[in-house]
């Protein structure tokens, strides 16, 4: 009986390994990797190696899928840093406000997910160069206009510029990126 189960698990392992290579959707692949870890751990237990099995479960099907989930969800995120915080984006139970509507429409156009954060310090230039912040919202104190800072190399930004062209209180500023050696 134990032998049959062990053979079945080994076949499942090979099938999962093929599925990981062949499959197209990223999040399904992560689930498959986690399953691979669990099946491998049960095989370790059957071969009387419980120590290795515990390590495999903890690393292979908990920490590594978590890291993959974060790295992949980062790819489809549009990160906005709100420096103005005065009603351009309203932080209520649900987000609202003039700026939020523009950004939500913009993000929907490209099928990205919006991530708005408020609590990073630093200069605009270094923020955009060193971190992957896509857009920084700031307010010009003299004219009261909102300024959206973004990377000059970003293709998305020119689309945003045309979107806000007929709004006089918003303008888009492109920051040139430094050339990096890495």
């Amino acid at each position, binding site marked *: 009986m134990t032998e049959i189960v062990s053979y079945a698990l080994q076949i499942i392992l090979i099938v999962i390994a093929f599925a990981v290579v062949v499959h197209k959707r990223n999040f399904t692949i992560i689930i498959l990797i986690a399953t691979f870890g669990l099946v491998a751990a049960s095989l370790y237990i059957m071969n009387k190696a*419980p*120590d290795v*099995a*515990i*390590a495999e479960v*903890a*690393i292979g099907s*908990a*920490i590594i899928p*978590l*890291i993959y989930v*974060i*790295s992949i969800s*980062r790819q489809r995120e549009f*990160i906005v840093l709100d420096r103005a915080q005065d009603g351009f984006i309203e932080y209520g139970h*649900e*987000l609202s406000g003039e700026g939020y509507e523009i950004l939500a429409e913009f993000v929907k156009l490209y099928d990205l*997910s*919006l*991530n708005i*954060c408020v*609590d*990073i*310090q*630093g200069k605009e230039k*270094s*923020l955009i160069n*060193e*971190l*992957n*912040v896509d857009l920084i919202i700031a307010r010009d104190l003299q004219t009261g206009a909102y300024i959206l800072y973004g990377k000059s190399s970003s293709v998305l930004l020119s689309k945003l510029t045309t979107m806000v062209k007929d709004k006089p209180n918003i303008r888009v500023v492109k920051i040139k990126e430094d050339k990096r050696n890495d």
Partner: protein
Amino acid sequence: MIRRVSLVVMLVIIFGFFVFSILDLEAFFSTFGKDYFFENGLSETGSVNLVTGIYLDYRLFDSLFEAGLLIAAVSGVTWISQHEITEKNATFMLDRQSTPTLFVTFSRLVYPFMLMFGIYVILFGHVSPGGGFQGGAIVATAILILYYIDVQKATSIDKILTIEKILFLTIIGVGSISFFTKGTFFTNPFDLSASEQVKAIYLITLNALIGIKVALGLVAIFTAFLKEGR
């Protein structure tokens, strides 16, 4: 096309070498090590779990290099992901507006049990399956769940790295105590005739140190990943 064909040919040749090299495996197969550990393991190391006995006593030198490897990996990751910008933390792990409440509540429910299980695996590493590395990984997973529960949680990678370095030196120090009692490095400092409970003091201490070190290291790598992706 030529590339692929040459790749397949190379793989076949390597497979042939592999089969050729394991043909006479039986000739040098011996159970000497297994028998030795089975007969003398418990009396020499005081560890019911022979795996723990091997990696904390017979092969502690290897374990030290393993711990050093982890600290080198953590240092490398932090060095790559360093930048001058001060930020409170990774408050962006999940979209704050769209994290399911059920998920957060369930994490709160599971968190203490995961932490307790991890600590159990660390402290009982010498009598049951587990040990410092496994328990440390479980504790790290439990701590990572905190990011879902409390998105405002602040973590300082530099402090974690400092604690980890100190712990690494402490592990080497605890391993070297035996030099003063027995005259050899990296073994159990207590006398061979001492009881199992006395010998267990050394095993539990080292397991706990390794467990904390591994947990901190994994948390540091994970936090660095969070900040880097931003």
